[in-house]
């Protein structure tokens, strides 16, 4: 049986969302009376057994010549190889950019049903039923499958990390999966020293209300105090005040942090489509009629140029007293 979870890593380190995926897999495994096997692909510097804390019983590192640069098809084949060797029927894959490429390919290779965007632990196992979000967070849908094998894709940050406690054995698996001769990674350009937005648990985001790009210092300072990622609205990236990689919304990046602070963003429906999965939303805007207030949990009607530095100071003293 066993539940296979893809333990995604970056530059040899497990990603934070990997811990969430492993603990989700543990919940699935517990309900079915089985164990979690975490599968890592390629070289790992982190202590593989550290995943035991989140519920993995076994951590298998797949090695071979094919596992240099990322290739979704090759990664999917590796996961399928381990699953077949272990007789696993269930897979958990976090919906990162790589995870979202691997899962549908694995679904074909493993002949498994694939339910993506899950936001809860399965509510039933016969038939397998899990709740997922749809319609850009405007709807929740219970999906069901009677397939023997099932892949659950989870929304990063939507479920949370749970420490199950325990130890994991670490081993490696020499894979016979061949490299992909039709595709080759030429270059990877990743922002250094910043939290990638899809992984950020806290996000500070700003829009046209900031009036000019040089005013982003105060946004960066607020983000620094919180240890948050920075994001922006579409108009701001369109006029080049901020890089496109920071644009959150329907056409940009979709995020589900536990805290989203929107400063000087009116809250167009396309913007909300990318951020409404956030657990707590704070809106700071000088226009009390800004539609974003309707989607917010907390709001301050006020001038960002006054409120943001005050908030940064208040958070500094809060942190100092922690």
């Amino acid at each position, binding site marked *: 049986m066993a539940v296979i979870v893809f333990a995604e890593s970056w530059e040899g380190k497990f990603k934070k969302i990997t811990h969430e995926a492993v603990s989700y897999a543990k919940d699935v495994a517990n309900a079915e009376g089985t164990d979690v096997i975490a599968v890592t692909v390629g070289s790992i510097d982190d202590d593989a057994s550290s995943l035991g804390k989140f519920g993995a019983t076994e951590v298998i590192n797949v090695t071979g010549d094919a596992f240099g640069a990322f290739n979704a*098809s090759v990664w999917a084949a590796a996961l399928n190889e381990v699953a077949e060797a272990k007789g696993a029927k269930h897979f958990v894959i976090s919906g990162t950019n790589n995870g979202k490429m691997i899962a549908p390919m694995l679904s074909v290779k493993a002949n498994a049903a694939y339910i993506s965007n899950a936001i809860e632990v399965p509510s039933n196992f016969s038939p397998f039923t899990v709740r997922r979000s749809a319609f850009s967070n405007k709807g929740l849908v219970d999906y069901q499958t009677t397939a023997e094998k099932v892949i659950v894709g989870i929304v990063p940050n939507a479920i949370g990390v749970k420490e199950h406690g325990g130890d994991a054995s670490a081993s490696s698996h020499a894979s016979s999966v061949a490299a992909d001769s039709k595709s080759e990674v030429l270059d990877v350009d990743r922002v250094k020293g910043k939290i990638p937005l899809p992984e950020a648990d806290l996000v500070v985001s700003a829009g046209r209300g900031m009036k000019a790009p040089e005013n982003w210092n105060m946004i960066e300072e607020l983000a620094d105090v919180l240890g948050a990622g920075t994001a922006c609205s579409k108009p701001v990236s369109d006029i080049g005040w901020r890089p496109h990689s920071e644009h959150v919304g329907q056409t940009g990046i979709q995020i589900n942090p536990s805290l989203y602070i929107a400063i000087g963003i009116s809250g167009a429906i396309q913007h909300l489509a990318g951020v409404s999965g956030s657990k707590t939303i704070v809106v700071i805007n000088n226009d009390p009629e800004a539609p974003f207030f309707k989607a917010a949990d907390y709001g301050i009607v006020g001038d960002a140029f006054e409120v943001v530095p005050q908030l940064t100071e208040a958070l500094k003293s809060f942190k100092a007293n922690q």
Partner: protein
Amino acid sequence: MKILVCISHVPDTTSKINFTNDNTEFDTNGVQFIINPYDEFGLTKAIQLKEAQGGTVTVLNVGDNTTEPTLRKALAIGADDAIRVDAKPSDAYFVAEQIATVVKENEYDLIICGQESIDYNGGQVGGMVAAMLDLPYASPCVGMDIDGSTATVLREIDGGKEKSKMQLPIVIGGKKGLVEEKDLRIPNMRGIMTARTKPLAAREATGAEARTSAVKFEKPAPKADVKLVDNVDDLVNLLHNEAKAI
């Protein structure tokens, strides 16, 4: 170059989402349907490639005849012909099987899907088609150049971008960046007139079976009214003690 653009027929972004039939179906009553926004970027990219390098652009939808206006719109934007697989798009696997069947018959060089459709947000079809046909796949694809039988594609990764070289044919899941929003094509009068006579073929579905089904829909609990505070200390306090977000 033969390009296939897969088009989802989806509710407009601003639609009110409601459910019907004891919450077992999406209520299409009063809903305006559009070309999936991610597919629009792919369609414009396909037309640009055709204009620069020659070839044909075919659009494909899996759906009943109510999706034909959406396909006609794609023809008016500049696609050469359209195929509708006459079936309810019951799940991603079923849809991917239909697309893969059409691709096998017609041998496209480039298969463009959106990174996801904005209705069910599944993000599954492109990857499944690629795996079914053993083709390279890139998603979310935010840039593409074609030189002979080689594609250079740019895709988003968490916190950055990855550039790859791929041998055609390939499958991509596109989004903004493939072309810029200001370059998106919209139908002009001539396009709308010629679209009426462009071929739109309906064909029967293959016998693939869906692997998943939506059994119950629910609207998220309405958000409580916003709590307005007038100073930052109250906000920090609420974020810590009530929301437990910091």
